């Protein structure tokens, strides 16, 4: 037992000696929370507009004025031909073009109907359609104004809406569990795999094996400092999320911490597995860093909703532990549900942990002979 403790302390020294990395490891969650909490959002604002108005008159001018008066829109260009529209889009100078036909005012007054064209840049489909929705809303309001209508037309079904769990629809609510899933996994996996492979590369692994400790004890001793580091990161993230971003922690904090610790443990074991496959540090870095980052960021549900994915891909996401962890965290933190609702996801995580452990043990027996 004393020898085990000595090993663990040695591993801690390794980390403390590398100040720079330690700073990054502790600083990463902070920057991620700041970025995800404040910078990443899908709101559409700052819409640049070009207007083609061949016959400026009361109605057309009023519509343009209404659009410009709205906080989100600003009319930057008044153009005189359709050709200019394309070029302005291609130079990314406008997001929306409003095109009035020649007889807009006349048509509206005499026949009560007039057309109006809204051309939007739908490179980003959501943004493009939201822009058209906003503009249509402004024009619809204007239409009510000129018709002196207030209130609802007859036979209108009125909906009252309630936003459950996240009434202000803050994107940070769904991002924070994602950040937890990404940071905890990537750091733990990378640190463990690099550390073990480094010893193999330097030849110091042989020295360790010659010591009275068993291989399994050596490996566990290696993971303990990273477990503590990740645990500190977990607490940092929870603290920042709750006090800086106002993300609620409605469920049992105890459960959250226990399950997160399980997840950290899983990631450490994954790092262990990678270390049995990689022969060099560079390989370990490529596998754990480049290989893991993209799938976890894109397929775990942290950025892109899994509900949208086609059937096969959705099944593929089942392999990624972060996916299940994120679901559990959302249910515990934001929906405040209790244990019975996460049994399925928890069992999957436990199963994965066991599998990775078994694989690592199988592999490491072969390797170090």
């Amino acid at each position, binding site marked *: 037992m004393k020898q085990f403790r000595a090993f663990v302390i040695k591993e801690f020294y390794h980390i403390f000696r590398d100040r720079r990395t330690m700073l990054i490891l502790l600083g990463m969650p902070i920057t991620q929370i700041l970025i995800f909490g404040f910078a990443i959002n*899908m709101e559409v604002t700052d819409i640049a507009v070009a207007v083609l108005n061949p016959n400026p008159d009361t109605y057309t001018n009023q519509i343009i004025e209404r659009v410009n008066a709205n906080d989100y829109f600003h009319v930057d260009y008044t153009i005189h031909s359709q050709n200019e529209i394309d070029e302005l889009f291609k130079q990314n100078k406008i997001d929306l073009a409003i095109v009035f036909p020649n007889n807009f005012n006349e048509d509206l007054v005499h026949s009560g109907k007039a057309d109006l064209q809204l051309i939007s840049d*739908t490179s980003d489909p959501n943004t493009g359609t939201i822009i058209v*929705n906003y503009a249509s809303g402004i024009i619809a309001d204007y239409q009510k104004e000129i018709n002196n209508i207030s209130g609802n037309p*007859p036979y209108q079904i009125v909906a009252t*809406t309630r936003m459950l769990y996240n009434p202000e629809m803050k994107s940070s609510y769904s991002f924070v569990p994602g950040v937890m899933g990404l940071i905890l996994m990537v750091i733990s996996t990378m640190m463990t795999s690099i550390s073990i492979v480094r010893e193999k590369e330097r030849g110091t692994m042989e020295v360790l094996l010659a010591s009275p400790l068993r291989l399994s004890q050596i490996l566990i001793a290696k993971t303990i400092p990273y477990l503590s580091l990740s645990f500190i990161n977990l607490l940092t993230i929870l603290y920042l999320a709750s006090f800086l971003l106002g993300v609620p922690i409605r469920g049992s904090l105890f459960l959250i911490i226990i399950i997160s610790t399980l997840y950290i443990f899983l990631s450490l074991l994954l790092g262990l597995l990678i270390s049995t496959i990689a022969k060099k540090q560079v390989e370990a870095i490529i596998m754990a860093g480049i290989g893991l980052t993209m799938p976890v960021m894109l397929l775990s549900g942290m950025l892109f909703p899994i509900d*949208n994915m086609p059937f096969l891909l959705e099944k593929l996401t089942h392999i990624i532990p972060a996916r299940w962890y994120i679901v559990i965290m959302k249910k515990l933190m934001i929906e405040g549900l209790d244990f019975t609702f996460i049994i399925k996801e928890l069992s999957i995580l436990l199963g994965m942990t066991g599998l990775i452990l078994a694989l690592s043990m199988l592999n490491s027996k072969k390797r170090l002979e």
Partner: protein
Amino acid sequence: MGTLKFLIEKEFKQTLRNSIIPKLIVGYPIMVMLIFPWAINFEVKNIKVSVVDHNNSVYSQRLIQKVDASKYFIINNITSSYDEAMVDIEKTNADIILEIQPFFDKNIVKNKTADVMLSANSVDGTRGLLGNAYLSQILNDYSSELRSELAHTDMSPKHKMSAINIIPQYKFNENLDYKVFMIPALMVMMVTLICGILPALNIVSEKENGTIQQINVTPISKYQFILAKLIPYWIIGFIILSIAFVVVGLLYGIWPAGGFFPLYISSLVFIVGISGLGLIISNYSETLQQAMFLAFFFILIIILLSGLFTPIASMPKWAQIVAYSNPLSYFMEIMRMVYLKGSSYRGIANPLLFLTAFAVGFNTWAVLSYRKR
């Protein structure tokens, strides 16, 4: 000049000695372009609805049918208990509850107005918002239908309404396919990861191996040394992107509207810049672990604050400053402009200029920061 050739040859040999790298160069772009475009989608659909119908009339059932027929919604359950529907939400079997009040039919016919309650799970804010918007749209359509059916029996005088008919036109990506928008983003992300991290590992592994001492005692100049280290990564980046372009074109039928030439020119400048950044990190690190984490730290930040996933315009001022000092933002803009809009050189001239400035800056810094100790 001869020295340079030998140095480049040495670099190639060293790099390829890691058996994983050739596999990475060929396999990674194929895998990334094969799998991820299907995942990176902000579209909201397959919204599961649990209906609580307190009315059970022809009118309420018609509403339910309309929701069922919509491509956005899937009816999960029809019940008469709100609590049961809430359990659906908690078990993630439903995303939104549509509650139809009792006397729905009587209210429509007699009082000309009726209420429904929408409760949306908004943990994912966008999903809640859009689910709400789509359902409201269905309600509006239904209201219009009822209006034209029932207004015949209505005795109130009609008045003349002026109607402005809006014709929307969607330009670039008319099919509103998210893949087209996000595939350039995937390419940028992939190139950044590989051409940013691998060079960062390069000089540091020489430091760790001790071979750096041998280079330091040779008369090779700093410029030659750094240049020889960079060139293999330019070539690797070039190959990776080319494979990606081809896979995307063959698999999804998406080819750059602006042609390959502007694409390759900007990609080259970007790769030069980002590998320069990797080398800078390498110069300032003593161990592989340090280099890896430093590189990863920066790369994660610049990927997120570049307009790749979310627009720069939606960011707060401080984040925008970071985004505009970020070479990725400009490269991302160019890639999307050329792929989607077919922008000519006039369109990409500005961002390309910035990219060139970054490339020059980073590489100068890389050369200057290398010290033969």
